[in-house]
């Protein structure tokens, strides 16, 4: 059993190394001289040299790479070119806002997706099913940067119930969370439906029905309990989509999280901060997926005892 966890951990470590290297390479992959890109063409030669040294760009690439990895391990991601503050401090400052938004959006996702998926699966082929799957298709097709302004138009400008943007109090998180959560709920509700439909066809469901359990107990305890396993994996992947999608949603609502920091840093050509943001988001994604895999393996012995992978 520990073998599964160990293999998974080792492969995750490789991925982390690859992710960090790719983030490091971002600056070098871009055609042209990064220093020139940052300072513009009119910069003085002395300024260029100073920036080159500040970024360590005057060293051999291999050494820069090792330095970047060693620094990242210590939590040292360099210094912002714009504010002259350590990147890790900037990230820590923005982390609570993104975490708050992510949790709220996840809550919205589950609140929409679970009932919708269960309803669609238990009434397969009915009007409910059609409506739920129609919602799912709409949700997948509507981009966050359009849904967001639409919600603002309706709830903030016309009805005046919720703030337009910013992060002040609990009601300012509602619209961003709805925006982020809807598209995820769209995908997740499909998954809940198909997974539940599969489980509801199993023998043990018939047994549970035959021994006279209430239909709701059968569906929720025996059906959903088992159907949620594959959903769990998808939810892990989704959380990553949440983190990635947060860049757009945070921009729409001016939500001061990591995503907005990414965009601000890109606009200011503040490369160390861009690298830090991308690295942090990607690493959280890797960790979340690792944790979901472990949870899955813990909940489902078939995985860790290895008939599949």
């Amino acid at each position: 059993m520990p073998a599964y966890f160990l293999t998974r951990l080792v492969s995750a470590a490789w991925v982390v190394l690859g992710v960090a290297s790719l983030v490091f390479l971002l600056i070098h992959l871009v055609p042209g001289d990064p220093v020139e890109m940052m300072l513009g063409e009119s910069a003085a030669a002395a300024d260029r040299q100073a920036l080159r040294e500040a970024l360590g760009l005057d060293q051999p690439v291999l050494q820069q790479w090792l330095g970047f990895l060693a620094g990242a391990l210590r939590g040292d991601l360099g210094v912002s070119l714009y504010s002259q503050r350590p990147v890790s401090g900037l990230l820590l400052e923005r982390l609570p806002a993104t975490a708050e938004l992510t949790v709220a959006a996840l809550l919205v996702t589950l609140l929409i997706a679970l009932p919708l998926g269960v309803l669609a699966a238990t009434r397969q082929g009915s009007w409910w099913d059609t409506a739920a799957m129609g919602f799912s298709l709409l949700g997948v097709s509507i981009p966050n940067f359009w849904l967001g302004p639409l919600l603002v138009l309706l709830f903030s400008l016309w009805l005046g119930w919720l703030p337009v943007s910013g992060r002040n109090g609990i009601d300012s998180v509602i619209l961003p969370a709805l925006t982020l959560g809807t598209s995820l709920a769209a995908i997740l509700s499909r998954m809940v439906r198909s997974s539940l439909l599969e489980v509801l066809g199993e023998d043990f469901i018939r047994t549970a029905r035959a021994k006279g359990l209430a239909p709701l107990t059968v569906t929720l305890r025996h059906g959903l309990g088992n159907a949620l396993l594959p959903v769990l994996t998808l939810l892990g992947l989704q959380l990553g989509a949440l983190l990635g999608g947060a860049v757009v949603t945070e921009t729409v609502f001016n939500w001061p999280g990591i995503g907005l920091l990414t965009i601000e840093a890109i606009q200011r050509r503040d490369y160390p901060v861009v690298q830090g943001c991308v690295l942090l988001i990607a690493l959280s994604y890797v960790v979340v997926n690792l944790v979901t895999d472990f949870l899955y393996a813990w909940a489902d012995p078939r995985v860790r005892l290895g008939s599949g992978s």
Partner: protein
Amino acid sequence: MKRLLPAVLIILAWTLLALLAGQLPLDPDRIDLQRILLPPAAGGGLGFDDLGRPVLDRMLVGARTSFVVAFGVVALSAVLGVLIGALAGYLGGRLDAAAVVVMDVFLAFPGILLAIALAGLLGPGIDNVILALATVGWVGYARLARAQVLSLKQREHIVAARALGSRLPRILLRHLLPLMSAPLIIEATFGIASVVIAEAGLSFLGLGVQPPQASWGSMIRDGVRYLLVAPHLVLAPGAALFAVVLAVNLLGDALRDRLDVRADTQERGMTV
């Protein structure tokens, strides 16, 4: 099939507009300060934006932007991804192991995060958008192609072709590719939808096409500032975007049902 008609019509209209936008008598960049933020009126198209430019004309030109990017990115990433994935799956060994690690690394960047960073570093412009999105997009096709090849390569006709001395390119193109085409077509269809959203998303973030070139995403970006006084600036391009993406997704669903492929293509899509 009948239910698909609206979707097919929307996709056709989008394609035609993209191809013909150069020929139509449009002036998407004409600034007219007298018409600033005028709402849609009867006979007056869809109103005017914050510089007095006609929203309808800009939307039609924006159709072209999204079309060019969508097909450019999907073509580029499909060719690249299938090549890498199929080679890795067919040849196996260290090459395959290396390819899997690289794919895992790319998949570790959620959604279009990597494309955002790349587009940001490369600077605005339609070429850079295509480059950034294809850098992220090839992985999906590579994963799919690799999985397909792994399950196909022990088939008798492949073994026979190898025994007869067929070379690698011939085996890949003539014996493997036709058998993998169904799932690839479905992946590419959903790919079009997600790239349309991704391009608009990058343009919304200010990382897409350069002004004054029109994109639905940058139109929404510009319009958001006037949401209260001129909601049509956000509603019109957003509705076009939504309609195209919905139509392509409907087509993808129909193809998936028809070609009977059990593929979870959408789950790793570029949610924006």
